[in-house]
């Protein structure tokens, strides 16, 4: 556990001293701010049915193929390029701890950026309480649902990025691979949007079974529920399984490299 915290601290520190993450975060947050402002201004003229806060989450989710590669591309690719992976393993650290530490470090950075993005509506409600409450920014259930949705998808997207970084020595290749995989996954979810069969679950085991083995492509359909504070367990399980799957793959890859 101690080595996990050490790797986590090192990873966060490495991200904070890397100029590429600052550049990516700055452009990402700027574009998101512009988009959010534009959306809030024109919100009444659109046929957007969900709470306005959800627009920010959608922006973060669909913008993640541009942000996550910058966060994850260096974590293993750089270690492999420099050969420092061998030095790391000469200390009492397991592959699993290393992968988990690096993934969590990237996830913390993603959380920081997401928190900064979520400050936009927060600032709005502090500065203009009346307009903020009219737009539903004071409804706590919207915040909980949307944030949870962002967290579970962020976790799986970061795991995909960590895996991409573990299979190449080249940061650019790792970044491009993450971008491609995330774009492909989001596209599949967009194309299957609205095709969800209405399942009725009678027992918790049916719900769990759908979470573990059910469809992974209807994530966007569930967003409507999350955005109004209805937590869907199967979506959370889907993303946890996806996260674990890519982290296990990364661990296997790192073990393979080590041997």
């Amino acid at each position, binding site marked *: 556990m101690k080595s996990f915290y050490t790797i986590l601290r090192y990873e966060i520190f*490495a991200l904070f001293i890397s100029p590429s993450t600052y550049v990516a975060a700055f452009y990402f947050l700027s574009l998101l701010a512009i988009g959010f402002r534009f959306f809030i201004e024109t919100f009444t003229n659109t046929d957007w049915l969900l709470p306005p806060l959800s627009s920010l989450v959608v922006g973060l989710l669909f913008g993640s193929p541009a942000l996550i590669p910058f966060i994850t591309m260096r974590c293993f690719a750089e270690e492999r390029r*420099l050969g*420092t992976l061998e*030095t*790391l393993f000469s*200390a*009492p650290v397991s592959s699993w701890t290393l992968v988990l530490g690096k993934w969590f470090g990237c996830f913390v950075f993603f959380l920081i950026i997401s928190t900064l993005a979520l400050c936009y509506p927060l600032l709005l409600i502090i500065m203009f309480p009346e307009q903020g409450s009219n737009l539903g920014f004071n409804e706590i259930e919207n915040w909980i649902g949307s944030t949870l949705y962002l967290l579970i998808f962020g976790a799986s997207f970061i795991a995909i990025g960590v895996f991409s970084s573990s299979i190449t020595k080249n940061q650019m290749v790792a970044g491009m691979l993450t971008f491609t995989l995330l774009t492909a996954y989001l596209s599949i979810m967009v194309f299957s949007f609205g095709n969800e069969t209405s399942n009725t679950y009678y027992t918790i085991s049916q719900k769990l079974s759908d979470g573990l083995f059910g469809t992974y492509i209807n994530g966007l359909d569930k967003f409507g529920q999350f955005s109004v504070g209805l937590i869907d367990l199967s979506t959370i399980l889907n993303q946890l399984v996806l996260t674990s799957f890519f982290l296990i793959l990364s661990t296997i890859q790192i073990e393979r490299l*080590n041997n």
Partner: protein
Amino acid sequence: MSAENKPLPIIEVVNLKKSFGRIQALKGVSFSIGKGEIVGFLGPNGAGKSTTLRILSGLIPADAGEAKVCGVDLAQEEGLVRNHIGYLPENNPLPEDLRVIEYLRFRALLKGLEGSRLKERIKVVLDICDLERKISERKIGNLSKGYRQRVGIADSLLAEPRLVILDEPTIGLDPHQSAVTRKMMERLRGEVSFLLSSHILSEVEACCDRMIILSHGQIVAEGSLYELQKRFVNKTIFQIDASGNKIDIQKRIRSIDRTCELIQDDPVEVSGKRRYNFSTEQGEQIAERIIRTLLEEKNIRISGFQIRRPDLETIFLRATKKNWEKHDFLNRNKI
């Protein structure tokens, strides 16, 4: 000391084997290293030195055989051995964007050090490796090769290891920087056991108590320099600086002494002259006759003649020569 009270060796390796695909990197290596010993691990490229060191560091598993490092059986508790050893990998890879002090702190934390002990150990290793405060504040990416190597060695000493494994610690270093590494080992002599692989034979000769020579995945020689000299070169060595045809020289010498052999196939060029090393079973008394015969030869000009004590290079070439000829590129015995 009775056998029961005898301290356990730091490294005990029995019949260690490892293959990478069709290539047999190690074919049953056995040796042991005692507490406080400094042992040089020598061998030509591809001999299996780095593979052995990586197995002993718990980085890769062996296919067969037994290996105990600091009493830890590598087959059973591979990861545990990393708590007892310091390891400097070949080429010493380091993160370029961290400062020396940040890197050492990170490594110390990974190795389980904390609080005042962490600070104290960092101070001690910086002192042992001659890394003054100004250097410790610099980014690793901006350091010279010599300083980077010192950072790597400082890292390997952080957790007060009982054994330090150094893979090519002085490769690419100037004599001053190599001397720092030697000084560091001298300072810790007796307290810490060192196993170092190197191509720089003079370096090994200067600081190691014992040498293990590996060739094609097998140990071909083991012992102190004196023991190896006695075993491999119990002959007299003549060093002849001459201009002239190698075959002519060899022919002339062999006409006087049939036991005389050229040690290196390719003579070394020294200021326009070629340096030949011959070994003979006849002893020093034959030297005079050889000089006289060579001086009489018109095609050969002699500029130097020396009776020499065999150095590690000669022993190394001798020890690995037969083994080298017997194996193909996949490390298999030639039919």
